[in-house]
């Protein structure tokens, strides 16, 4: 877009618009060849997974693995539904929603306080969260396991929610406080003169103005929790507490010979995110690079 916008002040006068359009829009054969090659590398596994889910076990063993299913069948999907995948799917939904809502809510309030205030407590909190950014928190799974067992939450969905909230806080606070800091100070002061409390200012002023950032961090954390495997592996045990990534792993162990069913579970676990990608690709990609972009 920017190439077509005339920029008389900065653009050198010698460059014609046709030339200018060529700058970024030129043919790039080397890059193009490379990009198409990479596309093949990306697409083949995805294509293979999708077509295999529409084969039954017989077809899997006899047909060419890359040939389209003939005839296509839904047997694999039936089998994973019978294997209780709907339950695991909803476990994942519960854990994701149950973690992301408090995580974003707590982080928003903390960011508001950190940006607006300067007490000792707030400075200490800020340092804590910065520490959390610099450390690979997954290295602390053993004490997390200890804490979860001691508070008698082992093998519950809540056990997955609590550390997910804590791990997401540092980056979420960082991003949200950057946005709250951009809200003009004058707006806060005039609201204060109108007699508003901090609580009211947070919700009536800061919240609406940081909504895009709230969406971004919700997506970022939602994806992390939805795809998370490690907490589920160490903090749950019984089949009825499985979340999707763990269920995939368990299926793979139980149905070793039924590859179409295992891959159907893979597809179902990715489906909600794929739908999100189709309806809000920009939002989703912005969410993925939350805090790292630019």
């Amino acid at each position: 877009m920017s190439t077509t916008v005339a920029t008389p002040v900065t653009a050198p006068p010698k460059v014609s618009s046709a030339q200018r359009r060529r700058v970024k829009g030129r043919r790039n054969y080397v890059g193009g060849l490379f990009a198409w090659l990479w596309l093949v590398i990306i697409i083949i596994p995805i294509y293979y997974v999708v077509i295999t889910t529409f084969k039954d076990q017989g077809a899997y063993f006899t047909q060419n693995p890359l040939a389209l299913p003939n005839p296509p069948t839904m047997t694999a999907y039936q089998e994973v539904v019978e294997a209780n995948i709907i339950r695991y799917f909803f476990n994942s939904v519960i854990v994701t929603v149950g973690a992301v809502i408090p995580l974003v809510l707590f982080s928003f309030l903390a960011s508001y306080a950190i940006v607006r205030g300067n007490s000792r407590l707030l400075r200490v909190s800020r340092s804590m969260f910065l520490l959390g950014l610099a450390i690979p928190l997954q290295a602390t799974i053993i004490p997390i396991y200890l804490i979860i067992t001691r508070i008698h939450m082992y093998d519950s969905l809540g056990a997955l929610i609590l550390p997910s909230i804590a791990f997401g806080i540092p980056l979420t606070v960082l991003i949200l406080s950057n946005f709250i800091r951009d809200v003009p100070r004058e707006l806060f002061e005039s609201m204060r003169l109108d007699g508003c409390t901090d609580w009211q200012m947070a919700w009536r002023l800061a919240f609406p103005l940081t909504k895009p950032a709230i969406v971004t961090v919700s997506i970022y954390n939602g994806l992390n929790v939805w795809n998370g495997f490690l907490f589920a592996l160490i903090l749950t045990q019984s089949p009825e507490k499985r979340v999707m990534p763990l269920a995939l792993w368990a299926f793979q162990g139980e149905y070793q010979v039924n590859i179409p069913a295992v891959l159907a579970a893979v597809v179902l676990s990715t489906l909600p995110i794929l739908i999100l990608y189709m309806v809000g690709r920009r939002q989703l990609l912005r969410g993925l690079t939350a805090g790292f972009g630019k």
Partner: protein
Amino acid sequence: MAALAPLVEDRTQLLERGRAPGGAKSRLGILVVPALLMFLAFAFLPLIGVLVLSFTDWDGIGDIGFVGGQSWVEVLTDPGTWHAVWLTFAVMIITWLVQTPISLLLGTFIAGQQRYRAFLAVLFFLPLLMSSAAIAIAFKSLLDPNFGLSAGLHLPFLAQDWLGDPTLAFVTVIFVIAWQFIPFHTLLYQGGVRQIPEQMYEAAQIDGAGRVRQFFSITVPQLKYTIITSSTLMLVGSLVYFDLIWVLTQGGPGNATRILALDMYIRGFQANQMGAASVIGVILVVVGLVLTLIIQRLAGRDLAASQMEGM
């Protein structure tokens, strides 16, 4: 607006004078409490806990007894640990070397403006939607020597025991990591390239610089901070590639892909040696911290400080 400004300032001053010292601050403090408590209980306390537990002989179930530095001696004299350390750094460096140039090239390419590049970008980002477990399972079946890719393409040389041979398993792990994470870094670089002012390329073109020259003289230097961010995420992130490798190989065959993160899990949750596993945990924390500091020092920019400004 300009006319209002003095008025606002006036009001602000009034307000500053009228505010009871500390009154408003203490009310603000309450807002940070829920986040702080959650972080303290499930991130900070575990951070202290991993250090404390490294001096115990806890088995994961019974009582916790302090044994001094016994676990440390055991772990540090175990050649398996050093193998895991070596593997961790090998995975870290090799995945960085593989991912960085590819992500940089792809990101630059899809930042261009033809329509088909945007279309390619949509497909390039698909792996970002899948969990590590899903990706690992997909590749496990794809790499099956009898019913996978080699049979589909009739290419016998692809019919290797990809996950059964130590060297091949290592190569496979690197490849699948690259497959999973290159899209993310491509996305970072695409965003970075789009921020480079068009005029720089126009000027270079007038000066007669070819495309390769432009790439190395404009694109790469302008992407300095993107490269730092991307590299930090790759290098520090590689310490905790657990899910993918666990589902692909479980650290095997033998211990050919048993990086520190897997070593910690296996010692702790399979061998029930939580003390030894905590030692590995402490090592991971320290390596992560040191790595972040080194990268920032080398990059000449204190990322933590700039992040702190943000808060």
